[in-house]
């Protein structure tokens, strides 16, 4: 856990990651709040708050008395959101570091091509 941000947002991100990578398939059951709390060693109220972010977001839905499930279409939407956030979270810091080191845009592009074809 990263100390600087609220844990519940980090829990939500963890579950999002699991949905995006397919660890949690759509329409499959999400671990219970208590399971999440014990696994991540956090307060159950915090776990609930994190999960509720995803419920509000529509990525997870609750079935009364049964549990929580990944919504269909959740993966696609989450991927879309992450893509939109990608420049802010990753590109800008990358450029800032490159500028600090005097790496030009062309050099940067070359590096990106060299380092990996996704």
């Amino acid at each position, binding site marked *: 856990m990263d*100390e600087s941000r609220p844990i519940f947002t980090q829990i939500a991100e963890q579950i999002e990651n699991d949905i995006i990578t397919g660890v949690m398939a759509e329409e499959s059951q999400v671990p219970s709040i208590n399971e999440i*709390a014990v696994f991540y*060693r956090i*307060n*159950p109220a*915090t776990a609930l708050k994190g999960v509720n972010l995803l419920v509000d977001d529509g990525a997870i839905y609750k079935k009364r008395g049964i549990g929580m499930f990944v919504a269909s279409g959740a993966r696609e939407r989450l991927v879309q959101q992450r893509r939109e956030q990608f420049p802010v979270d990753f590109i*800008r*810091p990358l450029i800032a570091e490159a500028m600090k080191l005097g790496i030009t845009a062309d050099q940067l592009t070359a590096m990106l091509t060299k380092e990996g074809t996704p």
Partner: protein
Amino acid sequence: MTTIIEVSNLTKNFGKLAAVDNVSFSIEENTICGLLGRNGAGKTTLMQLLTGQQFATSGDINVFGQSPVENASVLQNISFIKESQRYPEDFRAKHVFKSAPWFFANWDADFAERLIADFRLPLDRKIKKLSRGQLSSIGVIVGLASRAPLTFFDEPYLGLDAVARQIFYDRLLEDYAEHPRTIVLSTHLIDEVANLLEHVIVIDDGQIIIDETADELRGSATAVVGPSGAVDAFIGNREVLHRDGIGGLASVTIAGLTSTERADAAASGLELSPVSLQQLIIRRTNLTELGGNEKEIEARA
């Protein structure tokens, strides 16, 4: 949410010393609350007041809606585990676990047995002959297995090693998830318990200086590191919680940032480093101790 502890204008003087100085706060039912602060800050006295072990000099305490002082209907729902608990002469651990169920209606003997095995506690040895850590584990086991609706742990793990402490945190969390109850945990090992807490109360010099949810608190500060000029430009008029510097480099702790602000900071070549709950509490504790002095020094500098 039901309020289980309600304290208003509570003061406890020992002679001229105000161990608890006009404090007011409340604790909600079924939460894990951290009561944090330095040694001698007033944590133990506060817990003793909440459990009727000390008599208040002035102010009101309501626990389960009533005064706890000499009130059996309140007290028998409370388990209070102290750092240096004394046990009756010649008691062995087995005598403690034999007598505990007489006083705690929710006592779970199976759970106690599991914990005894977890902590490898010798039941037949005289308590006087146990190690510091084993002594602490008796308290921890009583506190967990009693499953009292309101449980106080006051620095419960003196002498427990890191492994044993982790067992304590894990069992506490598992059992709390299964059997929600109100837990007040006092400790100076803030980093270790930070993620377990839902509510944080920090007491310093008898006064409450922080009373917030753990999430609010965690998001409430960030350290901005970079060249002094750039840092100063970025922080502008924000309140500075703490300032460190070396050469032309500054590290300034300020209130929490939105994600846009974080991106701006990154764009201006500033590094944002996390402030742990422990660091944050140290910063805020120092701030109150130095009072106006620090600001004056800063203004002159």
